[in-house]
């Protein structure tokens, strides 16, 4: 298996509105792939299809070597997912949250114990293992949520705007964790609104109105579109789509 994600002509329509319009791309194993786009451009719909939450209208997609639509159960076991909204339980302790997701992904008690301790050590949370997650600062929560999404060592991890509302220092640390995961061979599929973060990605794609408007390494894109930063490119691509964004809504 050379590619972690292969998508061909993937399309999703809601009534007459086409949220995702025949997108095609691949993501290599161990790659950090930035999936960018304005609100309503179709990012979330695409992610929901790739994670098996949403059926496509047409097209094909393979994740971790399995067909997302015919082999959904195999795919689910191979992927990790961190949603836009905080996915841990505030009324459970740090250890209990880890045990929950470890258990759901089929780890045995020994593995859970081992990985919990390793994770707490990495995160510097060893003293807070039995604290309720609700009592942790937001930055810690997000880092913990990311680690928990990796607890079963998935082939691909989907991060949907993982750094929303997080301070710049924590964001930097968060990206260090992403690199570490990629270095361990995990493919990272990440959406973000922060263009400085997009610069950290191996490759990015920018969705505009349900299509992929641009794709490549940050350096390639800047050269191709003759812009200084991805931010400029993003604004240039997203702007003509402004009216469609308003009309389109739920992407």
């Amino acid at each position, binding site marked *: 298996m050379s590619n972690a994600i292969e998508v061909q002509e993937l399309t999703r329509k809601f009534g007459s509105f086409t949220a995702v319009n025949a997108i095609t791309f691949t993501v290599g194993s161990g790659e950090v792939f930035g999936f960018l786009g304005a609100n309503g451009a179709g990012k979330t719909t695409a992610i929901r299809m790739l994670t098996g939450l949403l*059926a496509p209208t047409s097209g094909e997609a393979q994740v971790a070597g399995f067909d997302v639509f015919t082999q959904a159960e195999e795919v*689910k076991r191979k992927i990790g997912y961190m949603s836009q909204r905080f996915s841990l*339980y505030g009324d459970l302790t740090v250890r209990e949250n880890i045990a929950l997701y470890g258990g759901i992904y089929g780890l045995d008690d020994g593995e859970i114990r081992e990985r919990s301790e390793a994770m707490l050590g990495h995160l510097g949370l060893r003293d807070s293992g039995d604290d309720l997650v609700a009592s942790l600062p937001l930055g810690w929560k997000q880092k913990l949520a990311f680690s928990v999404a990796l607890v079963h060592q998935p082939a691909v991890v989907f991060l949907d705007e993982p750094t929303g509302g997080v301070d710049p220092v924590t964001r930097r640390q968060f990206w260090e964790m992403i690199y570490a995961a990629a270095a361990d061979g995990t493919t990272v599929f990440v959406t973000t609104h922060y263009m400085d973060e997009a610069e950290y990605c191996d490759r990015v794609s920018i969705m505009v109105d349900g299509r992929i408007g641009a794709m490549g390494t940050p350096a390639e894109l800047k050269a191709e579109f003759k812009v200084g930063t991805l931010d400029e490119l993003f604004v240039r691509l997203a702007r003509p789509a402004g009216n469609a964004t308003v009309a389109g809504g739920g992407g």
Partner: protein
Amino acid sequence: MMRPGAMRAFMVKEIRHILRDRQTLTILLLLPLAMVVLFGYALRSDVKDVRIAFVDPMPDDATGAIRNRFAGSARFQVVDVVPTVAAVEPLFRRGAADVALVFEPDLAGRLSRGSPAQLLLIGDVSDPNTGTTIQAYASAILADYQRDLSTARSGMRIEMRTRMRYNPTLESVNLFVPGLIALVLTLVSALMTAISLSKEKERGTLEVLLVSPLRPWQIILGKVLPYLLLAFVNVVTALLAAWAVFQVPFRGSLALLLVASMLYSMVSLALGVLVAAITTSQRAAMIGAMAGTMLPNELLSGMIFPIASLPDWLQWVTIVIPARWYIVISRGIMLKGAGIEHLWSEMLVLVAMLAGFLLLAVRSFSSRLD
């Protein structure tokens, strides 16, 4: 593929949620106790102020003395003295009297001759407990009077007749307990699951669970089982409270009642899941569970208002109310000692409802994803 480990992890989480929310748990555990006691006392007519009317066709010394004794008792309050039994009817109808004591004509004469005298106590007592109590008080007063007459030879018999035709909705604790259990089970099962599941939906954790290898039915089962356990504890508490505080009789098989209660709980749980699946916020789920399960189960189940007294079309509606069937079963077991051979058809209705709601719930739950 079945993943027992995944289910176990999920259920442990659910149990932790329940145990950690101490306030809610306390309320849920004390609820059956509080409800049985409150409803039980509220629905009992107060035996301290029994309003009594006398039917005295031929007032004499004896009837006068007896009337005075009743008037002097703190338990009774004399509302009227009328000459004929027919004249007490309007008093009952207006709700002005609870009981009427009917004297035989020439009571003093009979007593002095030593011939047996009969007194008739007519009660507007659809509640047998209260009726028995009132009868005991009345007997005590009459026994006192007899002793003072020191005519031990003369037998004065009091015959108690109860009338159910007045105030039929004033049901006894006995009749009420089965309905109360249904109400508590609805609350714990339908309302709590609906809230818990819609909370996951609202917070976005459900999405993460759905991306995981857990199947929708596993998520539903994991949500539902801990509440089933809680419901079981509630049934036992309610029964114990009813027995300890009100001496509600228990004539049938406890095992059968528990099975029926769990069956009813599962129907309610499935309804709760269904409500959570079709609503998008906790608030909507709560209101939906209240309006969709609590209210109909309370009002259209025969718990408070007898089904026979409802308009025809509403009687038809009660067919789809799970509590209606459960109450028939639990009243049958508790009060009549009925066995499965009498109640299997009601049980089957509940099983069919469970299957139907469960199917709808799992389906609407899964279709939410598209």
